[in-house]
Every structure is written in C-alpha cells, then in structure tokens.
C-alpha cells in the first residue's frame, strides 16, 4: 500500500512538473494514466466486492472517454461496440422468452445485490423502477430511463407467441440481457451479460413488459 502511494505521489510530482507554467491543460494520456494509478491506490476489496470489478471492458472505457471529452461516442466505434455486445447475447437456452410477469414485477421492484453490504446469498434485483415507470400503479419510479408503461401494447404485441411478435420479443430479451447491443453508451446495466440477473429472471421481466395479462399492458 505504501509503495503504491509513493508511486502516485511520484506520478503527481511528474505531472505537476509537466504542467507547471502551462495555463492550458493538455496531456490527456498522462492524466488518464494518473487517474488509473489513483484508482488503483484508492479502491480496495470490501465484502463481496473485489477491486478488480473496475477492470472494465472496451465498451465502458470508450464511453467514459467520450463523456470526459463531452462528445458523443464516434459513430463507427459505437456501431462496432454494439455489434460486439450483440454477438455476446445469450438467447434463452430452452427457447422460451416469456416467464411469469408477477415474478417480473418483484424483480423490477428489487434493487438489492452486489454492493459491499450485500452478501453472496442476496438474490439480485433488476433495479428497474429506480429508472423506469413500469406498472403505472407504482408511483415511486425514476426517470433516467423512458417510461415502460404499456410497453407491449404500444408496440402492438397482442400475442407474444405469434410470429408477428417474434422480433419484438427477441429485442426485449436482448435489450435486458445487454442494453449496449442497441446503444453502446446506454446508461442501462447489462443485466444478463454481466451476470446480474439469471436467465429465468430475464424471462420474467420480458413477461412483465410483453404479457398482455401484465399490468404494464392494461
């Protein structure tokens, strides 16, 4: 720990020396490297959360870099990352996309799991209501994501098992499994891809959104 601290201090001095006398801040690569070494020295394992969860993938790195630059991600890069994420989607192993909307509602309500105060036995929730309106009877919903009330109805899905609905059913599965397949820098977690939710939990959420019996589509 002391070694890493000393390294950061040395890096800081080097950076400070680089910028001394400069009124304009340049050296983005140096700042990126310094940030990485500060992250390494600052964060540690706690409970079930390992510091290594910050060793993230190309999608997150590219989107964060675009955010820092204050620009949308380069179009071609964004499309390439979307294709990469799309390819990684695991489709339902038994071919069944729709589960139980009642279970889906519970998963949508549940925001638990994967923090350092949770334990390994905690069943992960979907955190859906934190950002989306879903069943309109739930008034405590967030607004970071779009409203999903009447999700299936608006999209004309009357029978999710019909061939007409196939594309929308698959899209809904894919969007929950890996939202970055459709929007590289989406704010939405990749629930299936990152192992937050199980296949059955994703099935139940697809049902919540697309089952004509679900309160979402009333």
């Amino acid at each position, binding site marked *: 720990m002391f070694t890493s601290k000393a390294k950061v201090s040395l890096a800081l001095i080097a950076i400070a020396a680089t910028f001394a006398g400069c009124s304009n801040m340049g050296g983005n690569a140096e700042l990126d490297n310094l*940030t990485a070494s500060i992250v390494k020295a*600052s*964060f540690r394992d706690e409970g079930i959360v390992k510091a290594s969860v910050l060793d993230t993938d190309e999608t997150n790195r590219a989107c*964060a870099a675009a955010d820092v630059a204050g620009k949308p991600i380069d179009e071609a890069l964004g499309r390439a990352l979307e294709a990469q994420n799309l390819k990684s989607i695991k489709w339902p192993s038994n071919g069944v996309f729709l589960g139980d909307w009642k279970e889906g509602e519970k998963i949508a309500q549940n925001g638990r799991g994967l923090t350092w105060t949770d334990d390994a036995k905690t069943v992960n929730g979907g955190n859906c209501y*934190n950002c989306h309106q879903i069943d309109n009877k739930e008034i405590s919903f967030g607004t*970071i994501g779009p409203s999903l009330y009447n999700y299936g109805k608006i999209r004309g899905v009357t029978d999710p098992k019909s061939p007409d609905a196939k594309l929308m059913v698959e899209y809904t599965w894919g969007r929950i499994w890996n939202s970055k397949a459709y929007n590289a820098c989406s704010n939405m977690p990749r629930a299936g891809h990152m192992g937050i939710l199980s296949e059955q939990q994703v099935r139940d959420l697809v049902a919540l959104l697309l089952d004509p019996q679900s309160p979402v589509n009333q």
Partner: protein
Amino acid sequence: MKSKTCVSLLLIFGFSAGVFAQKSAVQSIEEYRAMLQDGNPSDLFEAKGEDLWKQKRGPKKVSLEQCDLGKGPGVVKGVFTELPRFFADTNRVQDLESRLLTCMETLQGLSAADIAKTPFGKGEQNNLTALATWISAESKGMKFNLSQAHPQERTFFEVGKRLFFQRGGPHDFSCATCHGQDEKRIRLQDLPNLTKNPGDGVGFAAWPAYRVSNGQMWGMQQRLNDCYRQQRFPYPGFGSDATIALAVYLGVNSQGSASVAPAIKR
C-alpha cells in the same frame, strides 16, 4: 418532530394511483422536507465539534486551535468553501476531513492512518465528523471558491472529472449515470446534475448533512463512500486521492454557489 414525521408519511403514502397522486406525493415529500428544516439535529454535532477543536486531546494533549485549514493556523471561518486545496506542508491536495487528519496527527499525535481505517460512525471517526460539521457551519451561506492556481489543483480537477465519468462494476455505473442530466430522479429522489453548477445548497454545497432516515451525521467522505457503494464499486479509502479528486471536480463545478452545510436530508 416524531408526530410531524408520521403525519407527513401518511400524506406520502395516503394517496391512490395516477398522475395526480404522483404529483401530490412529490409535493408531500417537499412539505416533509420543509418541516424538517424546523430543527436540524446537526446543531448538536456542531457544538461537539467546536468543543473538540478547543479540547486538549491525543498523546500530545494539544488542541486543534493551531491547525491550518488553508487560511493560516487557527482560522476556521471561510475555509470550508475553499476546500479541497493544495497544502505545501503535505505537498498534497486535501479536503476538509483529510486535512483534519493531518492536524490530529501532527498537533495531537493521533494516528491518521488508524483513524482513516476506522469505520464510519465509530470512535475517532465520529469526532472527525463533528469537527467537519462545526467547521462547515462556520462558512454557512458563503460561496464556494476553490483555488485552481496550483498545478496539482488543476490536475486533481482533471482526475476528478475522469473519476466522475468512470464506468465500471457489474452495473457499468458511473457518477454520471445518475448525476449527468438535468431533472432526473431515482424512484422519487431528485438527482442534481453535478457535471455543472447545481446551484446554492445543492450537491457538494449540502454536505456535511444530518440524515433523518438513519439518524446519522455524514461528512462528504461518507456521502461519496455511499455513492460508490450503491454504484457497486469497491471501497474507496477514507481520504484517498480518488475521493479528494472527485471532491475537487464537484467543488470547482459549484463555484459561486452558497454552502448550506450542515444541511438536513431525508
């Protein structure tokens, strides 16, 4: 106070479904918050903090009255709205809490490393929070004006910005996921946009704060720590450079906004 809380909770949950009810619920929460302003228990922590500042403590049995928080030894008024800043003696950018640790070690002989390792809400951490509460109160109503004159201060702003947008963990969250847009909410909780100046008494300008929901007084270090917890990030060390760089980014963005600390939160 207790009965008021019950009444407002009834107001919050007493409405039925629909858009109308939703507006009413939000209004009720506003009323609840307004009622909270009647009495802020942070007064108690302020009094404790002021006492701790003047008390001869630690192995050296010395008070903190010669502590230099940025405006010279012993000056308390106005320091809070200029922190974090660069300190020549430690050759580091420090926030209020990490600077207090330096003083507790150099003046009083307490171990900064031991206090930094102590969990929030325990032992010397409680004293540190009380000190930060009192010191912030001494700058109440003053406008944030962080220095960006020293190269390390500018470097920390740039690092803090990168930390703010850093995406990671199982949920790919960054600070910006929740705090990067105007007028968004998590559930019913309004989220300030911290990529720019969120205004007087919002975001960086509202901590330390007393949290009614858990009856705890939190400094900025604990606020950032709990954000990272909810982000599913690993544990940021107390007073670590990551937390200080992030505070520089938030503090510089709040330039000109008035501090309401110590605030009261739901």
